[in-house]
């Protein structure tokens, strides 16, 4: 057994460098990082009624200095991966002082070493990742969504009274969403392809839009590299290697769960109470609906659903706020762990690159 492992490791040591050197590298390669204008904190504060207390309380944070008004919560990453890409990303993470939360990924190219280092960095700093799939893509705040207004007291045909929105941020979010939030994408080169997908799969939360990107996202034809990437992503998520014939390795990239198992477990723990209430209310609404259906959905029977549906909406908003706060605290803690007072960029890059390279090496043994 031990002999087998040693033989595999030895093979991997031969195999990974061979892949690294065989990977295609474009003539001019560099990643570009663009701050998404709408995500600057001076703009996002509008969602919190420009009130620091609302901001801190929403994220369940103790009072502290606000992020710089010019700081970006989300970056668009375009171009082609290059030998200095991980260092460049680290520079932007450090610059964000923990307030950088999301990467919108729209780059391509292959450099396994850099992909692995960037992926390890994304995971260690608990960043969320968005895979850009089409030429038109909009920035969406990662911590709040707009809810359909609550049902009014008069029943399903009446608007709720002002201020009766399920979320206290709804009206200001509506105003924010009217901004120009379009990402500035190259109309001919917008997909997240090749190494980009490895970085995307490292996100603490991984989002893509519904448009199928398969036709638009060219990917390397080298199946060995694709397999190595899949094994690496699995290793990063689960802390172990998959079985060689695990069907997960042949699944499309976007079929991986939205949340890595460890992050999902943290969220479940942090928001257990809110989850229980929302689950109970979901069942209750269905039960009351069944009663109404038993009464042939007469107008009065249908109206009886209103308070329960509104309660479910409010519970849903509270749950999402709790989850957003859990993500926020997780990310800020990660940053403080890596950069307690000052950041040693070189040391950090060395450690993270090493961690990425080790996982890549392990992945190569499969």
């Amino acid at each position, binding site marked *: 057994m031990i002999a087998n492992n040693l033989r595999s490791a030895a093979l991997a040591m031969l195999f990974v460098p061979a892949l690294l050197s065989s990977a295609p590298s474009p003539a001019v390669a560099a990643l570009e990082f663009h701050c998404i204008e709408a995500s600057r904190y001076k703009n996002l504060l509008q969602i919190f009624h420009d009130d620091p207390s609302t901001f801190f309380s929403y994220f369940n944070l103790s009072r502290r200095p606000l992020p710089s008004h010019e700081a970006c919560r989300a970056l668009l990453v375009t171009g082609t991966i290059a030998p200095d890409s991980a260092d460049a990303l680290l520079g932007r993470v450090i610059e964000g002082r923990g307030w950088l939360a999301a990467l919108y990924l729209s780059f391509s190219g292959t450099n396994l070493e850099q992909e692995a280092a960037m992926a390890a960095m994304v995971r260690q700093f608990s960043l*969320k990742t968005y895979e850009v799939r089409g030429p038109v893509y909009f920035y*969406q705040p*990662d*911590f709040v*969504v707009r*809810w*359909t207004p609550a*049902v009014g007291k008069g*029943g*399903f*045909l009446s*608007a709720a009274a002002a201020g009766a929105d399920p979320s206290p941020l709804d009206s200001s979010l509506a105003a924010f969403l009217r901004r120009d939030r379009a990402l500035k994408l190259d109309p001919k080169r917008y997909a997240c392809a090749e190494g980009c997908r490895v970085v995307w799969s490292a996100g*603490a*939360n991984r*989002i893509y839009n519904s448009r199928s990107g398969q036709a638009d996202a060219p990917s390397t034809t080298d199946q060995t590299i694709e397999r190595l990437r899949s094994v690496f992503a699995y290793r990063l998520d689960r802390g172990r290697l998959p079985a060689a014939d695990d069907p997960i390795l042949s699944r499309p990239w976007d079929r991986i769960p*939205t*949340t890595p198992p460890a*992050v*999902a477990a943290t*969220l*479940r723990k942090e*928001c257990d109470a809110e*989850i229980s209430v*929302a*689950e109970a209310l*979901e*069942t209750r*609404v*269905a039960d009351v*609906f*069944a009663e109404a*259906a038993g009464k*042939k*959905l*007469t*107008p009065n029977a*249908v*109206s009886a*659903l209103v308070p329960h*549906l509104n309660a*479910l*909406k409010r519970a*849903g908003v509270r*749950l*999402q706020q709790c*989850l*957003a706060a859990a*993500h926020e605290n997780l990310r800020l803690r990660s940053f403080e762990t890596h950069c307690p007072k000052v950041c040693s960029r070189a040391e950090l890059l060395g450690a993270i690159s090493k961690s990425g390279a080790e996982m890549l090496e392990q992945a190569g043994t499969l």
Partner: protein
Amino acid sequence: MRRAFQAVIAVLVLVVAAIERADALEITCIEASRYRHLYQLFGNDPKQLATFLNLDVAKLPQPEFCRAILLTGKVDTRSANDADKLLAAIEANQGWLATLQLSSGGGIVQTGYQLGFITRLFWLKTQTATALGGNLSYTPDFFVPPAASAPDTGEEQPDAERIRNWRNYLASRKGLKPAPLGYTGCASACGLIQTAGVDRAGEVRVHRARVGGAGKGEFINLKTTMSETDKRLQRLELEQIAFYRQMDPGPDFIRTYQETPAQTTTPVDVSRFPRYVADYLTGKCKINGDQLQELDRQIGNTITELNAPQFGYWIKTDNLRRSLRQLRHLRSDAERCIAAAHEAERRSHFAKLCPNGCDRKKLMDTVNDSVRSLLKQAQ
């Protein structure tokens, strides 16, 4: 004489409602609404359609007739004969045309009145067109599409046949040429058509009265005095309010119309039915179709909102999905009753208005009488 001349000039100026698009109103059949495709919703059996809508089996629509048409572009001046184009489409489909899908930024108010009165006269339904991938997204007016599958229990679902038929219908549409929508929405004078529907869907973007100036994009005519402008616009507003009252678009509509400055537009939901039509249908069908539609929307949106991916964790919504599926099934019966009631009403209107074919000139006289009566109310 001078006063008459001024009145003519005033009318000419008043009828200009500012819009950005310059192309004329186009009316096209929505291919997927041809009856030969709609029969797929009934196992390709026209008799089942007849049973569903309570129709005489011996008098079914020809397979090529269109149940819905798309109106796009500018609601044009009288000389463009938009009203006649609509009457021609109604006549060509022998009263089987039921729905107008609207995609227009507006245009000439007077033409809007004509198109609106024709819509109500022939008891047509209206819908603000929606796009999917830049093309018109069409759902037949009488059919409630099944909800996405609830968890599989292994049992045959009560709506299994409806789901099969819906899938067959979607398959039959696949080869059809899509209808691209340049402008998505219904604004300004388009709202005069939308609100005239007897069963309406979608929002309308409104603004209070405008008087076009000489330049493109001008919403006020600065060549007239303030007092003249005020007087003219007050009168135009009274006209439009009288029209909207008649069409009964819902409690917020007129208020939003009056509150929105001429330079901008505000979206406003239109009630599905005029109030007394709603009361009639609730009495006849024993359910409130509007209420159930809203419940459907609320449950569907709540499921989507609870499942927002950016939070990384969400509760299971299997119970709600099951409720939504059951609701769609129950709604399909309710909507069948509503659709059959509308169908009978529309067929009888057509039979009265076009007993031996449509006399379009006579019909236009009737429509213009309605417009004149409206203008009188504003005097």
